């Protein structure tokens, strides 16, 4: 029960970071179910990092972007990818993933704004990682 609430809090926080929206109940349930089969060999330190990110309501995206610079994928990265997958599989969000009409200008705008946000995100992630001693 405690683990279920922890996972619910985790998926709510990560979904807010990724999609800026409330997480549907169906995704919450799938997220919980997935944890019965996945992340069995996760490192304690990385699990602690995820806990801190959720408890302290840190910018999960920024921390993840910074930690992903290391070679092996961090548990936070893997959990966020799981959530992205569940979102793509959900009728609520599946249209976010496939471009259905020609939209060259939107594409260019997305590339430009993403490129501008990226360094800010990395710097913020570096700071949070240092400030909260995340590994």
């Amino acid at each position: 029960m405690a683990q279920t609430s922890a996972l619910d809090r985790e998926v709510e926080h990560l979904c807010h970071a990724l999609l800026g929206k409330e997480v549907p109940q169906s995704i919450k349930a799938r997220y919980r179910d997935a944890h019965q089969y996945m992340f069995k060999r996760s490192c304690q330190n990385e699990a602690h990092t995820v806990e801190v990110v959720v408890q302290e309501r840190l910018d999960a995206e920024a921390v993840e972007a910074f930690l992903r610079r290391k070679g092996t994928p961090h548990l936070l990265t893997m959990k966020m990818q799981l959530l992205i997958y569940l979102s793509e599989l959900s009728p609520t969000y599946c249209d976010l993933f496939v471009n259905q009409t020609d939209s060259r200008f939107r594409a260019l705008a997305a590339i430009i704004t993403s490129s501008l946000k990226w360094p800010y995100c990395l710097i913020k992630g570096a700071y949070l990682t240092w400030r909260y001693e995340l590994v």
Partner: protein
Amino acid sequence: MSLFDAVIVGSGPAGVAAAYELSGRNICMVDVGKSPSDTNWGSGSNFYQLRRYSERYWNEFVGSRFESFRNIDQAYVPPKLKSPLHRFITEDSAVSAAVESDTFRAIVSFAQGGLANAWGAQLYRYNETDLRQFPLEARVLEPYYDRLTDHVGISGSCDDLARFYGTEAGLLPALRLSELAAHLLRNYDRHRTFFNRHGVFLGRPRLGVLSQPYRGRPACDYGNLEFYRLLPHIYTPRITLEELIRNGRLDYRPGYFVISFEDDKSGARVVMRNIATGQVETIAGKRVLLAAGTIGSAAILLRTLGDTSLRLPIMENLPSYIPFINPGFLGKAHETAAYYTQLNVCYLPHRINSQANGDMIMGTFYGMHGLFHSEFVRDLPLPLSLNVKLLRYILPSMLVLHIWRPGHQRPDNYLTIDSKGTLHIQYTDAADSAVERHLIRVFRRAGYLSAAFLCKYPEPGASAHYAGSLPMRKTPSKKYETHPNGRLHSMKNVYVADGSVFPALPAKNLSFTIMANAMRVAAGLFQNSDRCAS
């Protein structure tokens, strides 16, 4: 005990091709033979329609144990092998035949039809250059290639790659290209002299995928479900196996794991474990034909010889991936009806570097069709939510070039067996990035951009293209080597038909040559029946 003319071990491309050649004789095939659970899901549908109802099709897309998500937190497997309906292809392989290695991640199958159930169906003839280290000539294989072309139904065309791929006789029309791939081909045509001067040739692949109905099987429907289920328009050896069984031309016995064999003047016997009962049984034939794959056949021989000091060679087509983007296609609507295998590249490094050996390097351009975009969300360096937004616009402009390098025998790369019967593989090989950097430079001319830091180099074993553990020699001297007719040097009536007999491994896909050679070996099994074949 009844004596078959031949007992074939394994039902992959080699075993099935040999059985096809031997049909008419009294032949038996023994196999573990895991079979698929559902071959009809999604018939006539398109991936991009079905994905909107992913909750309804959860078991097919994801799996009750989230099998499709394994690339998130476990070692990488190719997309086809992780789909739930393809689970049967590699299921229990670690239990049935443990392979231990820190340096080589072996992909092994005990399915009916073998790993070919998930292959890309790329089927190429080896020419004299490819066979220069083999003790046989290309003309010997040509009749078998011709018969297989007629049997399988291969789509392709006569283009710049014909000089590498051989005659276009008997080919079906090539599959439809995506808009992006057609654009690349047009730009290549425009800059052909430049490309060829730099050793690069581009054209259509030759695929066992039907562009039109053929021999009772339907044409490709461009439904993008190749990664999720077996499809009738893609040839796999299971199709021929089922036909042979249905027509009573093969005594097929699944549910057996072959442990070893025994061999004497009168014939050979396969020693096998009945998987259901655990009992050890034997089955006898005038000839035994090993077709269990490079690793499987090697393991059977090692168990038979019981020699834990013996090192068998192994080679792999080491892969790499280069993502290319055409900026003109950024933001285009995602094409939802396209086959994922688009174009092929043949690269001759010695054209530009006289120090390079004569080996060709091959590549295939894949379109980003039929996969969930979340698969790639870690591959861009930006924060994940930005990657999701960008992938939406970038993927329609992206082709991924999958490179295969030729494999060579090296003393550092070998298989052994321990006293408990566990197979061990030691493998040292790494790709330097010179090939990738050259191709990136060359394709820039056609407007396709990439960068060296975006290239991916999977660990050894990831290609599933293995060969050479029981190599063919003109004059074999070692007990694990094979004669040109496929006979194991240390045995009288045991032959080998799969990729383990290849003494070299060109970059060109080996499947078609495995099949043609298996037919050749099978055809010669009884030619010298009064004395031991040599």
